[in-house]
């Protein structure tokens, strides 16, 4: 993939937060690099503290970047001021997790959606109203929703509104920060489908941030697995899911319970066979996952593993990835696996 086709290029991103006068700052993201190409969905997976949301925020200019740079369509946006952000927002948008917090309750839907257009110079009232109505219909809401306030709508509907807001400006890349985590299962499915349809229709790219591997896998072409601010594994979604090369990915996959009692029992047995070697304490220089890793050895404590390429094309940061890779059987998902290209 040539650089020209890259929509988003993040290199060596490091984000630190100050937590107090006498305490070392918290390093939320530590040297992460990733790319997103046009019409691609890249899934960013991790648990709390993994830095996945922080990466999204850093790209959007909402987090303090200590090192590294971020370019969008070839332009460096690492330290973009708010005027540049305004121009950028025509191409780069966001959908947040909490449907209750992402819409201003004192403004109508129409005002919120219209604001995006007005930011980009579209001020004709009729035109704005027309486009707002069109977008609302596209996301499956009645056109009269424009005159109502967010309180009228359920969580799933609000999330659709948030999607509408993000797409008003016809962006090229949308950062989806856990967009379905707060939704019920049936609603989640609806929203995921909507995202997928819109991607095909509007030729969007997504940076899809989530903690649920199954959700991410369903939508993504590529997956990046994060732990404590660092990339553990990265590769094509189907490959990472079926044949993880990093112990953490493995644990993550096996931790999520399967909605199938027999398969879940088998998975549990496999999990119980891998207990962590608790002797390795938390160390500054080594692999951040070492204290919890069933494969950890001495070198893991002192030397930070670099990203290496596996036989299946993934990148993995682990000293013992070969053993892990060989050991994993194709995970029992009960799903039809195919590659999404």
């Amino acid at each position, binding site marked *: 993939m040539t650089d020209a086709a890259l929509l988003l290029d993040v290199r060596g991103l490091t984000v630190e937060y100050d937590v107090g006068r006498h305490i070392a700052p918290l390093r939320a993201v530590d040297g992460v690099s990733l790319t997103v190409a046009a019409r691609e969905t890249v899934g960013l997976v991790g*648990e*709390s503290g993994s830095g996945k949301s922080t990466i999204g*925020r850093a790209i*959007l*200019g*909402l987090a303090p970047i200590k090192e590294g740079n971020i370019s969008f369509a070839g332009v460096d946006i690492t330290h973009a001021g*708010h005027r*540049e*952000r*305004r121009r*950028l*927002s025509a191409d*780069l*948008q*966001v959908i*947040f*997790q*909490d449907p209750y917090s*992402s819409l*201003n*309750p*004192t403004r109508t839907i129409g005002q919120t959606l219209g*604001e*995006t257009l007005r*930011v980009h110079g579209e001020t004709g009232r009729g035109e704005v109203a027309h486009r707002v109505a069109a977008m609302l219909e596209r996301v499956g809401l009645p056109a009269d929703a424009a005159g109502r*306030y967010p*309180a009228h709508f*359920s969580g799933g509907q609000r999330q659709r509104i948030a999607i509408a*807001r993000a797409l008003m400006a016809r962006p090229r890349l949308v950062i989806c920060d856990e967009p379905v985590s707060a939704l*019920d*299962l*049936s*609603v989640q*499915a609806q929203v995921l*489908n909507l995202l997928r*349809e819109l991607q095909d229709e509007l030729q969007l790219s997504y940076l899809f941030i989530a*903690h*649920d591997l*199954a959700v991410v*896998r*369903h939508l993504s072409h590529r997956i990046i697995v994060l732990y404590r601010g660092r990339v553990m594994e990265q590769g094509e979604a189907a490959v990472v899911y079926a044949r993880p090369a990093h112990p953490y990915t493995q*644990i*993550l996959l*096996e*931790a*999520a*319970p*399967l*909605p*199938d*009692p*027999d398969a*879940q029992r088998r998975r*549990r047995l496999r999990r*119980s066979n891998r207990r962590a070697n608790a002797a390795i304490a938390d160390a500054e220089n080594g692999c951040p996952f070492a204290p919890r890793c069933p494969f950890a050895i001495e070198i893991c404590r002192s030397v930070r593993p670099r990203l290496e390429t596996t036989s299946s094309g993934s990148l993995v940061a682990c000293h013992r990835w070969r053993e892990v890779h060989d050991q994993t059987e194709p995970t029992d*998902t*009960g*799903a039809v*696996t*195919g590659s999404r290209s």
Partner: protein
Amino acid sequence: MSATEVAFAPVSDDPAGAVTEAPRFLRRLLRKPIAVACLAYLAVVVGVAIVAPFVLPDVAGEQAGDLLAVRQGPSWNHLLGTDTLGRDVLDRLLVGSRVTMVGVAEALFVVLALGVPLGLAAGFFGGRVDRVVGWLADLAFSMPAIIIILVVLSVFPQSMLAGMVTLGVLAAPGLMRVVRSATLPVREELYIAAARVSGLSRTYIIGRHVLPRIAGAVIVQASLLSAAALLVQSGLAFLNLLVAPPAPSWGGMIADAATAIVLQPWLIWPPGVAIALTILAFGLLGDAVRDATTERWSAPVRRKKQRRAPSAASAAVRETTHAQALLSIDGLTVAFPSPAGRIRVIEDVSFQIGAGETVGLVGESGCGKTVTAMAILGLVPGNGEIEAGRVVFDSRELVGLAERELSRVRGKEIALISQEPMISLNPVFRIGWQLAEAVQRHHGVSRRAARARARELLRQVRLPQPEIVARRYPHQLSGGMAQRVAIARALAGEPRLLIADEPTTALDVTVQAEILDLLRELQREQKMAILLVTHDWGVVADICDRAVVMYAGQIVERAASLPIFRQPLHPYTEALLASNPQHAPEDRLLPTIPGMVPKPGVWPTGCHFHPRCTYATAACRQRPILLEQPAADRETRCIHYDRLLATR
């Protein structure tokens, strides 16, 4: 002076208010008779303040009135009597309202002009700005304001402007603090982040997004501040520091009346009542605004009424009774009062839990599963009440039991853990203390024994270094640890049934797996039954023996866990399982259920699910559907289950 600072202590954790919508707020406010009354009264006072000096131009300069008729009580000539110099009290009251209200306005203006921008800046920008402003506020709060004002008034004698401006400056930090604490949560709101992503300037964001949100809190404080300013203004006027005689002011009139207090006690009443009423109006208005902006539990904390005696259970199919069912729920119905009458949130819920069994209560949000779980313990939230049904635990009816009796069952026989472990423990007590308290309550042992047992419980939930954890406070724990502690506390009474309300939803998936493992082990060790309320089918598959599926307040399917996954017998269960991304094929869209879950109060007639169901027929909406039993240990509330069998 007193009310000023008391007013500033934020009363709720959410001073910005939960859902504030601009036009609805005004309408809501005007719907309260108190608010209307206060606004009307204040409008009258302001009107008088503006008009009276024009209508009665001589009063302000009147040195003395009818010296033959001093200190008279009310009469036809002088409706409110005459003062010590024979001047008409009513006239002076009306004209004096202007200086009084002007003083209030001056102070209010200064406080708002200083407090709101500083508070917004401190709250929104944080960092150094916040620190500097905070330090200034500290300083101002610690100053003896009265001294400063008195000295200023001696520099500018009889200048109300100087006095009120000084008051405003000294009171501004209080408002600043309230505005700041109202801004902080708003700043974290995601729509602010979205606005920043759109490249909107910070001043725009503060002005158009933050300010309207905190407007409610500011208006509340403005009302209270006006009351305080009036108090101070009249106090200073009482001390004859603000208004040069003979100009009338309410405070000055009281001072005048004080000199004649023995001879004519009536004189202190008119101006005093005027002041008191106006202060009251401001205060009540502030309260009304606060009520209109925040969504608070309006239900006052009251003793739970005696629950109704158990009524006859409805004619639903009883689950195949195991003779030794530990918990048996039969026809449980819970309703909430509302302006539109009583609304049912769960209807005719029946199921059983055997000893040592794990039963999953599965459903999405709004289906009533949490209400069901809480009803078992007699803790239906808010104003809800159990309308009908029975809850039999170990052959003992729990519905209708007195609070004291029920309190003995809770924790000792049936325990509860909930979704948010971080807030389910008291933040100001140590872990060990809270556990020991539970142990003492249930076992009546000594303090020392209880502490030892507490450490033992922490070991039981696999927490390393229990002695250290026992000394910690809840905010020092991670989510997973806190949940283990919550489980430990639940185990303190050695209950036979543990109700776990979404215990892993708020936890990371790896931690979730550990907690589920823990629950399974504990269950084996303690021979405890578990009622697991969840929306996650994976959890059901992992740990539950049986599953009870709920939709829109009803049970729609009941069976052992494996058969449900293999062959669901209700369209909702089937659709729900199918829409799980775990199962989904990658290159196709997920199967979804069209439509939305109906809210309580607007449940469809007949089957609650029929509007969204692919198998629905006309028969489905005609009459309420009962649970049927197509096979042994399989129940479903669907008349077309045979078609589900056919599709597999």
